[in-house]
């Protein structure tokens, strides 16, 4: 009889330390790299409080908020993707599958369309989070008491499509090409030119949403056995669903409100880390959280370093990065699974 490892532990013990190291490396790189490369000495000088004014401004006003937002948004998308794949028992689930991303984007688009976004930098994210929560109520109403994953996915598609239609309507009716352009640009997703105010908006959302998503990791494992199997193991599926949907609406809604829609991170990161764990839904949560943060910040560094005439958008880069990573993974899986 061999029981060599504790069942809940990831199969690769080095996984978490490596991911944490990865987060530190991309964070430092993100602070250093850009149009002006800051040396580690100048970076440390600013941290110690005696840096030169140029370095201080670049670091504290530009790169620090950008890096923090990148880490928070990436972590949230990675975690939400992992949780939803486990909960819906569908490897194609991603943070936007239940409509939270589109709904949050609709709020932001409305803020731009009606000019509310101009009042205060916080207006756009706040309106965006608000529509995300309204969409959640709609989702609950549509899905009703049914606990099946399929019902929820169908309701999510309905909410998502409705929000998408609203966004198209705003583009259709936009008073001038500039307004349409502004909406399109926002929708592509970016964490450029964000201030520390944005960090304060996204931080509580990610902490609250993330906590709600992490509570039910045992329930996700139990759902491996199907809904009856999970309930016979003492899982209260109704409460689990409420917590998970709230977590996604608050966390992903908050992330999208600041960054715009950034695709693929939440879909591919769980697939990348899953083979390195024991493949149970709970084991991939924290690795996906860290992996999402790494991937998003790394993509954002690429945005800054690739020389283009007009600035690249983060959402465009993650989509381009995502496809080859996904294809590579698909080819590997086809041989083993």
């Amino acid at each position, binding site marked *: 009889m061999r029981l060599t490892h504790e069942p809940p532990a990831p199969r690769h013990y080095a996984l978490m330390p490596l991911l944490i190291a990865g987060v530190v490396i991309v964070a430092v790189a993100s602070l250093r790299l850009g149009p002006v490369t800051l040396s580690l000495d100048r970076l440390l000088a600013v941290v110690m409080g005696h840096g030169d004014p140029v370095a201080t401004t670049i670091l504290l006003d530009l790169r620090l908020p950008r890096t923090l937002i990148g880490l928070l948004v990436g972590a949230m998308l990675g975690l939400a993707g992992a949780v939803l794949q486990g909960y819906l028992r569908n490897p194609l689930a991603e943070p936007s599958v239940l409509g939270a991303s589109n709904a949050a984007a609709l709020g932001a688009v409305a803020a731009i369309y009606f000019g509310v976004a101009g009042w205060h930098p916080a207006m756009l994210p706040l309106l965006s989070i608000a529509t995300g929560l309204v969409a959640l109520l709609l989702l609950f109403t549509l899905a009703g008491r049914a606990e099946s994953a399929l019902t929820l996915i169908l309701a999510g598609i309905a909410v998502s499509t409705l929000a998408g239609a609203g966004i198209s309507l705003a583009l259709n009716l936009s008073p001038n090409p500039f307004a349409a352009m502004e909406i399109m640009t926002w929708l592509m997703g970016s964490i450029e030119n964000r201030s520390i105010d944005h960090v304060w908006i996204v931080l509580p959302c990610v902490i609250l949403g993330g906590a709600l998503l992490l509570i039910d990791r045992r329930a996700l494992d139990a759902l491996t056995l199907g809904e009856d199997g999970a309930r016979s193991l*003492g899982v209260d599926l109704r409460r689990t669903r409420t917590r998970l949907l709230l977590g996604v609406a608050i966390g992903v809604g908050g992330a999208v409100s600041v960054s715009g829609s950034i695709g693929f991170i939440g879909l591919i990161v769980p697939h990348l880390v899953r083979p390195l764990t024991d493949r149970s839904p709970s084991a991939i949560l924290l690795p996906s959280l860290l992996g999402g943060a790494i991937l998003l910040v790394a993509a954002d560094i690429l945005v800054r370093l690739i020389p283009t005439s007009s600035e690249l958008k983060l959402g465009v880069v993650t989509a381009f990065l995502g496809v080859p990573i996904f294809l590579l993974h698909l080819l590997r899986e086809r041989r083993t699974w």
Partner: protein
Amino acid sequence: MVTIRVEGLCARLGRRAVLHDIDATLAPGALIGIIGPNGAGKSTLVRAMLGLIDTTHGSVTIDGRAIATLPPRDRARAIAYLPQGQTLHWPLSVERLVALGRLPHLGPMSRIGAADHDAIVAAMARTDVAHLADRIATELSGGERARVMLARALAVGAPGLAVDEPLAALDPGHQIDVMQLLAREAQAGGLVIAVLHDLSMAARYCDRLLLLDRGRLVADGPPDAVLTQDRLRAVYGITSRIDLAATPPLVAPLDRWTADPDHGE
């Protein structure tokens, strides 16, 4: 020790009434077989006893407490359940899968402890899957997987055990192993409820049989009282040869029975 009492139970799935007015008291120390043709409501009865579906009338109590008011974790610790089929959504290792049976005993932050380990190891040994511990459960044969799933249910270590068609996909040797295992569980004081299709196995190992037909409990008692040719003809629509005095007792379905005069009777 756990006793399940079912009184006047009615249940529907969707719009179809599946169970009508079922009364039964299932006391510990017995292996109780639930038999009946496809669609008779066997699985639904088990699921209702576990509180997994809403019932329309009647009550289910576990040790005197209404199932609906029992906290889910208490319910899970009282009765382990092996659902029909082999639903498994992720390719977990066998050991990890069996460990899921310990979930009702774990707090939200606690990890698998020594007692949990022992239960997992013992459950795998009892269903003869210890040698598969490191294999991926989705890559096993149907019979191996069925035994792994049974180990998962045993790992709960509950005084009650409800298994839905535990013999499907098993070879004859493992069918006997599983029935002996269930009988031993019952002898040790457990309440074991098994949905079965093999009437010989049911006659041989069960202390009591509940025969369901179209949602009604049509017979309830020891195998020799329940398994008669007339009843099998009425409920299953088959002619049969029944020899319950033999060792082991045999129930052999012979032919489809029809009211046609030159057929049967």
